[in-house]
């Protein structure tokens, strides 16, 4: 039996510390160990993006990361983006523009979109489509997802301008 690793993580602002088998996948750490079940498993092979989280400022697919690789990391999942009383603009926007149907891809989709808008606050439609190409949706055909993200970008930019 391999030696367990002493893991420290910060997940959505909360410090976590535990011992884990090296082969534990980050998606299982989140979903099973910490009961953070927003990120989902869709393909298991890093193609679908349902498991997307933000790890040390990068969008990553948590199904393709061992827990040891994530040791010491700061992780944000969909649960850390907004609260029921203060939703993230993207969470509002996806609802407003019907950017989801079954909801299974949505946590990964919104988590990825938040990072995309952080890096590129005013993307073109083409840049949104390219920047979201690591996330598969089977229901929406993407048209309303793209619309939701572009609308969120406008709103966030307007809010920023108003604040300045």
């Amino acid at each position, binding site marked *: 039996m391999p030696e367990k690793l002493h893991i420290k993580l910060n997940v959505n602002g909360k410090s976590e510390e535990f011992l884990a*088998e090296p*082969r*534990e996948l980050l998606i*299982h750490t989140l*979903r*099973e160990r910490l*009961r*953070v*079940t*927003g*990120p*989902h*498993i*869709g*393909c*298991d*092979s890093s*193609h*679908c993006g*349902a498991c997307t989280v933000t790890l040390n400022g990068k969008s990553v697919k948590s199904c393709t990361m061992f827990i040891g690789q994530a040791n010491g990391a700061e992780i944000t*999942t*969909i*649960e850390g983006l*907004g609260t*029921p009383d203060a*939703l993230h603009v*993207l*969470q509002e926007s*996806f*609802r*407003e523009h*019907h950017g*989801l*149907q*079954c*909801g*299974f*891809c*949505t*946590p990964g989709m*919104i988590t990825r979109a938040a990072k995309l808008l952080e890096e590129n606050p005013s993307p073109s439609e083409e840049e*949104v*489509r*390219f920047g*979201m*190409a*690591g*996330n*598969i*949706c*089977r*229901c*929406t*055909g*993407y*048209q*309303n*997802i*793209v619309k939701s993200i572009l609308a969120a970008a406008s709103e966030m930019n307007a809010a920023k301008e108003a604040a300045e």
Partner: protein
Amino acid sequence: MKDDVELTREDRVANLKGMGCARKRVEDARFTQGKGNYIDDINLPGMLHGDFVRSPYAHAKVLSINTEAAMALDGVIAVLTAKDLEPLSLHWMPTLAGDKQMVLADGKVLFQGQEVAFVVATDRYIAADAVELVEVEYEDLPVITDPFEALKSDIVLREDLAGQTSGAHGPRKHHNHIFTWEVGDEEATNQVMDEAEVVAEETMYYHRTHPCPLETCGSVASMDKVNGKLTVYGTFQAPHVVRTVASLLSGIEEHNIRVISPDIGGGFGNKVGVYPGYVCSIVASIVTGVPVKWVEDRMENLMSTAFARDYWMKGRISATKDGKITGLHCHVTADHGAFDACADPTKFPAGFMSVCTGSYDIPVAYLGVDGVYTNKAPGGVSYRCSFRVTEAVYFIERMIEVLAIELNMDAAELRRINFIGKDQFPYQSALGWEYDSGDYHTAWDKALKAVDYEGLRREQSERVTAFKQGETRSLMGIGLAFFTEIVGAGPVKNCDILGMGMFDSCEIRIHPTGSAIARLGTISQGQGHATTFAQILASEIGIPADSITIEEGDTDTAPYGLGTYGSRSTPVAGAATAMAGRKIRAKAQMIAAYLLEVHDDDVEFDVDRFVVKGAPERFKTMAEVAYAAYNQAIPGIEPGLEAVSYYDPPNMTYPFGAYVCVMDIDVDTGVPTIRRFYALDDCGTRINPMVIEGQIHGGLTEALAVALGQEIAYDDMGNVKTGTLMDFFLPTAWEVPNYETDHTVTPSPHHPIGAKGVGESPHVGGVPCFSNAVMDAFRAFGLRHSNMPHDHWRIWQTAQDLGLHK
């Protein structure tokens, strides 16, 4: 109620957020916050995890299974094989198509990925390790993956059926043959063909694909031995049917079984069937007395749970010289895989393939279907369509194109002159359906005008000239499709699943303060039922949609229903909702009349209230009536305000649509680029235009995938070549265009609110539209037909075969 009086009638209608309103979805709050509750989110105390040992072979004898090493692993609780299930008579299970299927390999395996043993362990990591330790000794057998070869071969795939000359659907012609199903008049059809001025023939293969919802299938079974209650959570598109089947199989009385479909991460038909994983999790929980979870991974999903299509279709269509169709003949060789597990209504072994006369007035027709066993996975579900309707519509829309080529006619015009006329409805088709309503000419003209069809044809012909002169290596295709769907199964007199009539149901309770809960026998997999059913009800009973909870998926609370697939939720459960609402309204009217001290007939319903006829200032709102139902003793009326309706539809509904796709094709690389896609849908009365549009975008995208590359491919050894999302084509945002949507409204005359259903139309119409665009690009160079999927290499091959690579 002073404020209310000041509201205009328009405001009161708007407040309801009823039918026709683009109401935002109530489901979205939890989904956007990561608080959906899908099968893998279910986590019960002490829960064990199951995992399968699967066959690497497509056809082999199982000589022995040694579970010793697996059982010795710390944390392994049980390893189930067919031998363990046999005493319970659960090593085989009935399929929805009247066949039976091995739950675990009983002496042999018949397709790659077949379930051989079920490991139960304390966590999924240990279960995965134990799967590796189970030693199975196989002796490989010759593999058949081609249905035509299967019908000639001496190799017997299903020894368990040896000697049975008759199956669930009549006589079997050969040991690998399942059934022959015939509709229409073959003799008359042949005679018309013999006498026809023009006959066009074509053979086409609608390849095997898979619905591949983003969430795979899974279940959590929990046997409470103290109370004798079994609870099963699972990815079930038809939870009540699962309860009935579970009861019949296990012998546990139906009232002691509770089936719950939690949030479902997409279904598209994949979650209609009953899978060995469900059965094994139930057995394992009964054996261990603790909850057992089984969730398949993506490869398992693609390799073993229900596929779609795999139809070889041979067609003949006859016409006069000026293009009037006189007859249609279709024969299908249907590859059903190792077990016949098609999910069709019992009396329809090829589903509603007999709607293959399409939107056209065809006087005589014949359809024959032969089902065949091969060494491929079982299934045959309706992937985002009513039963086998994509196959039917693809077939007729290809036959129309081939006939247009034969006649040297424009394919749009050929469609127009053969459409069923508006005044012919209700229309009796040659293959036995009664189309409820339609106005095809109006829809077609609107579509062609919207895209400037003639302009497109001019541009296309200029492109052909430029290509021939060597000025471009790109061709342009104009894809046309006009489809008629047949949805809303269905009338109990001819539609059942395992003997259960295909009605559906709604139960409504109005609370004293004027809000309500409605429960239905259906289950949303993303369609937004919690939003749209509340809208139907809001319009029917005058309580705002925001004050109505819709609940589905728990068999202990919901009335019996047949579930959600085949676009049946709105046509059937939506009708039940309206009818139950009308029962509420009828009782409410009596209460209102009592409160207003007038005769029942002297009040009328108006938006959200009952008004004294001729005296609009005298009224009682539905909220006031609801309160009175619980706090007043009204002579002759029971307290409370509840209703239930079981709706048996008198007919199917027939949504239709007109689609046009404009595509550019790079002849040298085979890469298609979709320049434009226009979709006009007529789904009758529109409940929520936002949700309808979303369904159309999604269905078109799944159609794009199927037409342009999505395939479950096997090699000659029966190995699945497309088992991961690297090879199984699910397009990303980058490969998908923006769609233009449009509509006409032709209500269903027999549906209480005139709605027809829409979720599957875009898929049904989309597949032939994308495909026709590809083939149309090559029409000027002599192409008649090429099979899907039109991935890069097959498009390139078409160009190569036509000599377009110099």
